[in-house]
C-alpha cells in the first residue's frame, strides 16, 4: 500500500496542542499553539505527593492528557470520531490503513519509550503522546510528531508496539480523526470560555493539591525535604519538579510563557487592551518559575549536601503562589 496525504507537518512545543493544530489546519482552521492551549484551558497546576512515579512525587503543570483535546472540540464545535481497540491490535492497524486509503489524516495516542526516532534521553514510559499518521509507503508509516522538527517514520511493527504500550494511560490502540467541521466557529466566545475555565480551575478546586493553592502546598513540602529525606533523595524530588516544568513541551516555565502568548493574542481577538497587561504579568510569573528552576539547579549540583537553598526555593514558590492567586482573580475580572 502506498498512500501519502498532503498533510503539512509543523513543529510545536506540546504534542496535544500540536496534533490538534495540525489536524485543524488540514481542514482549513488556522489556530496558533497558544490559541489552542488557551481555548482548551491547558494551564493548570497540581502536586500529588501520594502519587509517585519511580518513587518520586508527581508534579504537573497541565491537566490530564486528553483534556485540552476534548475542550477544544466542545468549544469550537469540531466533531471527532474516536476509536479504541482494546484487544485487537490487528484491527487497530487495518482500520488505520482504511482511513489512510480514504485520505483521512489520523491522530493517535502512543507510548514514548519505544518510539525509535526519539532521542534516548527523552525515552521514558510516558504513554499519552500524540502523533498523526498521514501515509504509508511499503511497510513504513509516515508520522507527523509535533515535537519533532521534521516528519518521522515507523515500521508497522514499531507503530503497533507504541500503540499498545502498557502502564499508566495505556493507549490501547486509541485513534481519532476529524469527522465534521462546523460552518461557523465562534472564536471570541471560545476564548472567553477557555479563560473562565482556567480561572475556575486555578482558584476554586476545594483541595489544596490543585490550582494556585497546590503551589503553596508544594512550597511547604520542598521546605521540609531536607529534614525528611536523604540529601540525594531531597535533590531528586526537587529536581523532578523542574523536569515537569521544563523538560518537554511546555514552551518554558511550565506553560506560563505559552499562556502569556495566548493572552496577548486574546487581547486582539476580544479587542480588550487590558489583556495585554495580563499577558505581561503572566510573563513575569513565568520568569519567577525560571528563577525557581535556577535555585533547584544549584541544589541538584550539590546534591550530596544540604544547604539553605531549600528555604530559598520554598520562599520563591510561596511568592509565585501569591502572584498566581492574585493574577487569576484579576484575569477573571478582566473577562467578566
Amino acid at each position, binding site marked *: 500500500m502506498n498512500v501519502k496525504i498532503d498533510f503539512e507537518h509543523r*513543529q*510545536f*512545543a506540546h504534542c496535544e496542542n500540536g496534533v490538534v493544530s495540525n489536524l485543524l489546519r488540514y481542514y482549513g482552521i488556522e489556530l496558533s499553539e*497558544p490559541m489552542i492551549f488557551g481555548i482548551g484551558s491547558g494551564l493548570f497546576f497540581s502536586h500529588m505527593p501520594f502519587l509517585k512515579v*519511580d518513587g518520586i512525587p508527581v508534579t504537573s503543570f497541565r491537566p490530564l492528557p486528553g483534556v485540552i483535546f476534548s475542550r477544544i472540540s466542545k468549544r469550537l464545535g469540531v466533531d471527532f470520531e474516536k476509536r479504541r481497540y482494546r484487544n485487537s491490535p490487528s484491527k487497530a492497524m487495518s482500520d488505520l490503513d482504511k482511513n489512510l486509503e480514504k485520505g483521512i489524516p489520523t491522530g493517535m495516542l502512543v507510548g514514548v*519509550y519505544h518510539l525509535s*526516532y*526519539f*532521542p*534516548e*534521553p*527523552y525515552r*521514558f*514510559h510516558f504513554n499519552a503522546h500524540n502523533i498523526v499518521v498521514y501515509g504509508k509507503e511499503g511497510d513504513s508509516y509516515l508520522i507527523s510528531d509535533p*515535537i*519533532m*522538527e521534521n516528519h518521522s517514520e515507523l515500521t508497522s511493527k514499531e507503530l503497533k508496539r507504541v500503540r499498545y504500550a*502498557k*502502564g499508566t494511560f*495505556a493507549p490501547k490502540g486509541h485513534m481519532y480523526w476529524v469527522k465534521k467541521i462546523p460552518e461557523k466557529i465562534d472564536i471570541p466566545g471560545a476564548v472567553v470560555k477557555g479563560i473562565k475555565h482556567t480561572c475556575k480551575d486555578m482558584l476554586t478546586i476545594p483541595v489544596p493539591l490543585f490550582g494556585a493553592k497546590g503551589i503553596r502546598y508544594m512550597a511547604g513540602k520542598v521546605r521540609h525535604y531536607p529534614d525528611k529525606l536523604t540529601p540525594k533523595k531531597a*535533590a*531528586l524530588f526537587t*529536581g*523532578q519538579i*523542574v*523536569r515537569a516544568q*521544563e*523538560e518537554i513541551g511546555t*514552551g*518554558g*516555565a511550565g506553560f506560563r*510563557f*505559552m499562556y*502569556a*502568548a495566548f493572552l*496577548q*493574542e486574546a487581547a486582539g481577538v476580544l479587542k480588550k487592551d487590558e489583556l495585554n497587561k495580563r*499577558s*505581561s504579568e503572566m*510573563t513575569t510569573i*513565568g*520568569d519567577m518559575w*525560571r528563577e525557581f*528552576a*535556577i535555585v*533547584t*539547579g544549584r541544589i*541538584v*549540583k550539590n*546534591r550530596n549536601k544540604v544547604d539553605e537553598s531549600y528555604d530559598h526555593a520554598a520562599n520563591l514558590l510561596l511568592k509565585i503562589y501569591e502572584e498566581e492567586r492574585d493574577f487569576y482573580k484579576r484575569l477573571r475580572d478582566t473577562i467578566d
Partner: protein
Amino acid sequence: MKAKEVPQDDANMMRGKWKDPIYTVDENGKYTTSYSLGWEVKNAVMQQAWDNIREKLEEIRKKVLAGELSPIAYYMEKNIMDVSLLAKYMELWKWTVKKHLKPKHFNRLSQETLEKYADIFNITTDELKDLEKIKNEKLPE
C-alpha cells in the same frame, strides 16, 4: 523571558532531532517563538534522573553477576520498568514475574517465555541468557 535571553546550552540531549520552542517576548513586547538548544538547569535535572537510573542499574548488575538475581531483573531495570509494568507487558501475574527474577526459576523457563521476555527487551534469547554481555555492557549515559 526575552527572546535574546534564551539559553543555548547544548548538551546534545535532543540528539539534533529538534530545538525546544520557547515562547519569548521581542523588543516591542510582542510574543514570538524562539528555539533553544538546551538550558544548563534543564540539562542538570535530566542528567540527575539518568544518573539515578544508572546507579540503580549498577547495583542490580552486581546482584545478577553474583547469582542473586536473574538477567530479567537487569533488563527490567535497564528498560526503566518495575515488576508491575513488566507483568503487564508479559500478560502475567506480578508474582509470576517476581519468581522469574530468581536465577533458580529463570533457568527453568520455557523457550517460549524467554522469547517473550527477549522481545519486550528488544534483544535475542541468547543475549538474555548471556551473563558475559551483562558484565561487559556499557551503561547508558
